[in-house]
C-alpha cells in the first residue's frame, strides 16, 4: 500500500474545496450584480413624511373633525449626554421612571438602533411641546417631530366620529403592506368607514449614509424623494347642529337616535348614548381603560349595534302587509276589550280606548288587539297551505323593509337584527306544533323580532317615501370622494305605494289630534308642521319598558325621518317622542319654541333605571 499517494490526493482534495469556495465567491462578487444593488438599498435611509389626515365636515361645511399640531419626541441615544431625568420628566408630563426605562431599553438595543433616532413619546400636545422647546438645549439628543393630531370643534359624539389610534400588530397583519408600526388609522365610526380616503399617502426623503452611518446628503439630490399626499377631506351627511342637539337631549339616558333624510337616505344624526366624549377621543389611548371599564359600555354604538324589540312601531309593518295581502281593508273594524282574547283564557292586553275601531284609529291609538287580528289573518290566509308558509310570506315582506339583515350602510360594524321564519319556531316547538296564536306577539313587535334603531329610522323613511327607501349612509359624494352606486338606487318594499297614505293618516292623527282625543303621540305635535309619528313601548326584561318613537315631517314632501329609542324610558310618549319631536323642530325650524319640554328632556336622568351587568 503506497500511502504517500494519499498525501497528494488529500492536497488535491484541498485544492478542489478551495476552488469550490472561490468559485462561489467569484459568482457572488463578480458575476452577480444584484448584491451591489442590495447593498445600496442597505446604505440609504428613508425618512418617513407623514401626511395630514383629511378633515371631516358636516353636510353644511361645518368642521366635525379637524387637525391640530402635535409632536413626537425623538431621541438619538448616541447624542444623549448625562441629563436631569426629573426635569425632563416634568417638562414632558411623564414619570421619571418612564424615561429611565426608555433609556435603559435603548442601551440594550444600541446595536440595532445605531445612529438612528427613535420615537420616545408619541402625540405630545403643542402646549407640552412648547414647554419642552424652551429647555431643549439642556437635553442634547432629544428633538420633536411634527405629527398631526385630531381635534373636535363640535361635540358630535365619539361613536359617530370614531377614533384614530396607532395600529397594533394585529391591524398591520390584517392590512399587509399598507401600514407599519407607528402609523395611525381610524378604528371606529366615520374615521374607520373612510380610512382609505382620510389617511392620505406617506412620503419619504431618502438620504445616503456613509460607513459610519452618518447621513451625508440627500440621495440623488432628492430626485427619488416622494412627498406625502394629504388625506382627502370627507363631507358627511351629518347635520352638526342637529347631532349636537341630539347628544344634549340624550345625555344621562341609554339609547340612541337616528335621523335620516328620506329622499336621499342621508343620515342627518346618529346619536348613541352614553357615548365616548370627544374630549377623550383625541387621546383615546390614555382613556381607553376607563372607557372599557364603564358599565354602560360607551364604546358600544347602540344606533347600529343594539338589537331591540321594536314594539308597537312594528304595527305599521303588519298593517301594510295586511293591506297588500288583501286581508285588511282600512275600513275594517275590530273590537278591543282591554286586549285580544285567544285560546282558553289567554289574553294579549291593551290599554283603554274606544271600541271597535278602524285601521286609522288603530294606528292613532296603538291598539294591540287590532293587530292581533291583522297578523292572524295574514298568517292563516287560505292562500297558504299552513301557518308556516304564511309566516315565511310575512318574513319576506318584513325583510323587504330592511329588517333582519344589514342595511348595507357605509357605517362600520352595522348589525342585522333578526326576524323569525317558520324554521325559528319549528326549532323551538317542532314542525306543525305551533300556530298563529303561538306567535301572536309578533303583531305588536315583540317576541322574536329584533331590530336596531337604524332599522327603525329606515322604516320611518320608507313610510315617509311611501314604499321605498335609500340605503342609509353617512358620507356624501364630494370632490374626489365617491360613494357607492347602491346609495343612489331606491330600494322598493313588497308593499305597493297606494297602501301607505291610509296608514300615514293614522300616524298624523296620533300626533295631531290634540290631547285627550286618544292619540298616543300628541306630545310630538309641532305647530304648522304636519308631524306623523308612531309610538312604541317595548318590553324590557331588565326593568322598565323601553320608550320608542318614530316620526317624519312634514307629511307631504318629508324632510326628516327619525327614530328614537330610550332604554327603560317607559311609554313611547314619555321620552322617545319628545326627544324625536324636539329634534325635528330643531332641524326644520332652526330654533325650539317648546323650551320647557326641551329643558325637561335635557335634565331627565334615567341612568338609575338602567340595569347593567
Amino acid at each position, binding site marked *: *500500500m503506497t*500511502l*504517500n499517494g*494519499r*498525501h497528494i490526493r*488529500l*492536497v488535491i*482534495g*484541498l*485544492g478542489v*474545496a*478551495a476552488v*469550490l*469556495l*472561490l468559485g*462561489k*465567491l*467569484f459568482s*457572488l*462578487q*463578480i458575476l*452577480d450584480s*444584484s*448584491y*451591489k444593488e*442590495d*447593498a445600496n438599498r*442597505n*446604505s440609504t435611509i428613508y425618512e418617513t413624511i407623514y401626511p395630514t389626515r383629511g378633515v371631516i365636515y358636516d353636510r353644511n361645511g361645518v368642521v366635525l373633525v379637524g387637525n391640530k399640531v402635535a409632536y413626537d419626541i425623538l431621541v438619538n441615544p448616541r447624542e444623549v449626554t448625562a441629563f436631569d431625568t426629573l426635569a425632563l420628566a416634568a417638562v414632558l408630563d411623564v414619570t421619571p421612571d418612564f424615561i429611565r426605562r426608555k433609556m435603559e431599553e435603548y442601551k440594550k438595543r444600541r*446595536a*440595532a438602533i*445605531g445612529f438612528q433616532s427613535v420615537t420616545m413619546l408619541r402625540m405630545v400636545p403643542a402646549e407640552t411641546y412648547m414647554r419642552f422647546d424652551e429647555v431643549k438645549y439642556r437635553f442634547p439628543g432629544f428633538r420633536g417631530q411634527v405629527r398631526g393630531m385630531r381635534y373636535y370643534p363640535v361635540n358630535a359624539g365619539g361613536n359617530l366620529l370614531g377614533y384614530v389610534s396607532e395600529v397594533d400588530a394585529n391591524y398591520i397583519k390584517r392590512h399587509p403592506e399598507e401600514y407599519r408600526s407607528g402609523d395611525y388609522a381610524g378604528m371606529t365610526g366615520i374615521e374607520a368607514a373612510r380610512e382609505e380616503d382620510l389617511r392620505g399617502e406617506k412620503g419619504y426623503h431618502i438620504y445616503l*449614509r*456613509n*460607513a*459610519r*452611518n452618518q447621513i451625508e446628503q440627500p440621495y440623488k439630490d432628492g430626485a427619488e424623494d416622494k412627498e406625502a399626499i394629504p388625506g382627502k377631506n370627507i363631507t358627511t351627511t351629518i347635520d352638526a347642529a342637529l347631532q349636537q342637539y341630539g347628544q344634549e337631549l340624550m345625555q344621562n339616558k341609554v339609547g340612541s337616535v337616528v335621523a335620516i333624510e328620506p329622499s336621499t337616505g342621508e343620515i342627518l344624526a346618529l346619536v348613541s348614548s352614553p357615548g365616548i366624549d370627544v374630549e377623550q377621543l383625541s387621546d383615546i389611548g390614555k382613556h381607553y381603560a376607563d372607557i372599557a371599564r364603564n358599565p354602560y359600555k360607551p364604546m358600544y354604538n347602540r344606533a347600529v349595534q343594539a338589537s331591540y324589540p321594536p314594539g308597537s312601531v312594528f304595527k305599521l309593518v303588519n298593517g301594510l302587509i295586511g293591506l297588500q295581502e288583501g286581508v285588511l281593508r282600512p275600513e275594517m273594524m275590530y273590537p278591543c276589550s282591554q286586549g285580544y282574547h285567544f285560546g282558553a283564557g289567554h289574553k294579549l292586553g291593551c290599554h283603554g280606548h274606544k271600541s271597535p275601531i278602524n285601521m286609522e284609529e288603530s294606528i292613532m291609538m296603538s291598539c294591540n288587539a287590532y293587530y292581533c287580528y291583522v297578523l292572524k289573518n295574514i298568517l292563516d290566509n287560505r292562500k297558504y297551505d299552513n301557518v308556516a308558509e304564511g309566516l315565511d310570506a310575512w318574513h319576506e315582506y318584513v325583510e323587504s323593509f330592511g329588517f333582519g339583515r344589514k342595511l348595507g350602510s357605509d357605517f362600520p360594524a352595522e348589525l342585522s337584527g333578526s326576524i323569525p321564519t317558520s324554521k325559528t319556531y319549528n326549532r323551538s316547538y317542532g314542525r306543525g306544533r305551533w300556530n298563529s296564536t303561538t306567535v301572536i306577539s309578533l303583531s305588536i313587535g315583540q317576541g322574536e323580532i329584533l331590530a336596531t334603531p337604524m332599522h327603525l329610522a329606515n322604516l320611518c323613511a320608507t313610510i315617509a317615501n311611501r314604499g321605498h327607501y335609500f340605503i342609509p349612509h353617512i358620507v356624501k359624494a364630494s370632490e374626489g370622494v365617491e360613494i357607492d352606486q347602491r346609495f343612489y338606487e331606491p330600494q322598493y318594499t313588497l308593499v305597493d305605494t297606494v297602501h301607505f297614505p291610509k296608514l300615514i293618516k293614522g300616524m298624523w292623527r296620533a300626533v295631531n289630534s290634540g290631547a285627550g282625543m286618544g292619540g298616543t303621540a300628541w306630545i310630538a305635535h309641532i305647530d304648522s308642521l304636519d308631524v306623523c309619528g308612531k309610538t312604541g313601548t317595548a318590553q324590557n326584561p331588565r326593568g322598565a319598558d323601553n320608550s320608542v318613537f318614530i316620526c317624519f315631517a312634514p307629511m307631504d314632501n318629508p324632510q326628516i325621518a327619525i327614530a328614537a329609542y330610550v332604554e327603560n324610558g317607559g311609554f313611547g310618549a314619555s321620552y322617545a317622542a319628545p326627544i324625536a319631536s324636539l329634534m325635528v323642530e330643531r332641524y326644520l325650524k332652526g330654533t325650539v319654541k317648546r323650551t320647557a319640554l326641551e329643558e325637561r328632556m335635557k335634565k331627565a336622568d334615567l341612568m338609575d333605571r338602567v340595569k347593567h351587568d
Partner: protein
Amino acid sequence: MTERKVHIRQSVDWVLVGLYLLLVFIGWISIYAATHSTEPGSLLDWNSRAGKQFVWILTALGLAIVILYVLPPKLWEATCIPFYVFVLGLLVLVIFVSSDVKGSHSWFDLGPIRFQPAEISKISTSLLLAYFMSRQNYRLMRTKDFLLTVLIIAVPMLVIVAESETGSALVYTGFIFVLYREGLSGWWLGAIGLTILLFVGTLTWGPYWAILVLAGVLILSNIVMGPPSHLRRRLIVGGGFVLVMSLLPLLYNHLCSLVNAHMDWLSQRVWVPAAQEDYHYFWSLIPKLKPLYILLGLSLAGVPWLGWRAYQTKDRFLAFTLLVFLAGVLLVFSTDYIFENVLQPHQRGRIEVLLGLREDPAGVGYNVTQSKIAIGSGGLLGKGFLQGTQTTFGFVPEQATDFIFCTIGEQWGFVGCLIVIGLYVLLIVRLLHDAEACRDKFTRIYGYCVAACIFMHLFINVGMTVGIMPVIGIPLPLLSYGGSSLWAFTILIFVFLALYRDEKKYF
C-alpha cells in the same frame, strides 16, 4: 543514531510561523474594520474589540514562545492521556455550570474571561489520536484498534453535540482525513462523505435536490470509475438526466404560475357548473405533478432497467452504484420523514436553528442574505479599508466573530478573498508537507490532525458566509475575534512546530 546539532533558527519552520502571523494580523485589522463604527477607538483601545484582540494576540504569542522554547516537546506525548481525560471532564462539566449563550451550553464564565473547552478539546483529541495511532503494532483495519480510534474521536464529539455546539462537533468529522492518510479505505471516506451530504442536504435543500445530488455523484463516479464501454452514451444520458432534472423545478414554478393565472381567468367567467368543475379539476392536476414525483417516477423506471443491464453485462460497479442509490434515497426519506413527522415542533426548531435553516426572528436566512450582500457588494477589488457599508454598520450579525470573512469580502473584494483563502491553503499544504517529512509517526499524525481541524473550520466558516453551508457558528481560525479560539489554534499549530523542530534536532 548520532545527534546532529542544528541551529534552532533553522529548525523552526519559519514559513509556517510567517503564515500564522500574517493571518493573525489580517484578522486583527478586519476586526477593527468590522467594529470601528459601533465601537469607535483606536486599534489599541482596550475597550474596543480590536484592542482586546490585540491583547489576545500578544498573549497567544507569549504562549507560542513558551511552547517553542520553554516546554519540553516530549511533554505532549507523555501527558496526552490525562490531558484528554481532563478536557473531557471539562466538556461534561460545562454543560451543568455554564450560562446559556444563544441556546448552547459550552462556555465557562470566569469573571472577565470566558472560554470554551470545546476549543481545547481539539488539541487533546488530536494528541491522543496521534499517540494511539502511532503505537507499535497498531493496525487501523483491526476491529479493536479501529473501534478505539473511532471512540477517541466520537466521545468528545458527542459531548459537544450535547452542549448544542453542532458546529464544533462537525469539525471532528475532519479526522476522517487523518484516518484516510493512515490507511482507511477510500470507500469509507466516500460513504461517510455521502451520508453527511445527504443528511444535511435533505434538511437544507429538501429531498428533491438531495436525491438529485446523489444521482449526480453516482453517475459521475460510474463514468469515471466504471468499465470504459459506451462512455459517450453514458455521458450524454447521465449528463442530460441531471441537467433536465436541475431545470425541472424552474419549469414547474413557471407552469404553476401560468396555471394559477388561467384559473383566475376561468373563475371570472360564467360556466355551466359541472363542466367547469371537470375543467378546473383537469387544470388543478398540473400543480400536483411535483418535480419530486417525476424524479421518483423516473428512478422507479430506471433502477430496474439499469439493474437488468448490470446483470447482463456483469457490471458489478453499476450494481453497487444502484444499491448505494437505493440506500441513499431511503436515507433521504427517512431523514425527511423523521424530521417532519416524528420530531416535536420544538425539536425540529432546534435542528433547524442548528443547521441554520431558522437562524433568527428577523426571518429565515437573514444572516446569510446579509452576509452574501456584504461579500457580493465587494466586487473584484473591494470598497477599500474601512469603507464597507454593510459590515461596518450592523447589517451582518456576528461580524467580528463568525462572519469576519464578510469584512474581507466587502473591503478587499474577490482579490482579498483569493489571498486569504490562498494563505490558508498554503498553511495547510505546508503543514501536510512538514508532517510527511516527519519520521516520527506521532508528529506526522498530529500534523495531519492540525491540518484537518484548520481545513474543517475554514471550509465550514467560509462556506457559511457564502451560503453553501448551513449557518453553524464556528470561528475562522486565527481571524475571528475571540481569545478562546485564537489560543486553541495557536497551541495546535505551535505544538506541531515544537514537535517538528524536535524531530529535526535529532534526526
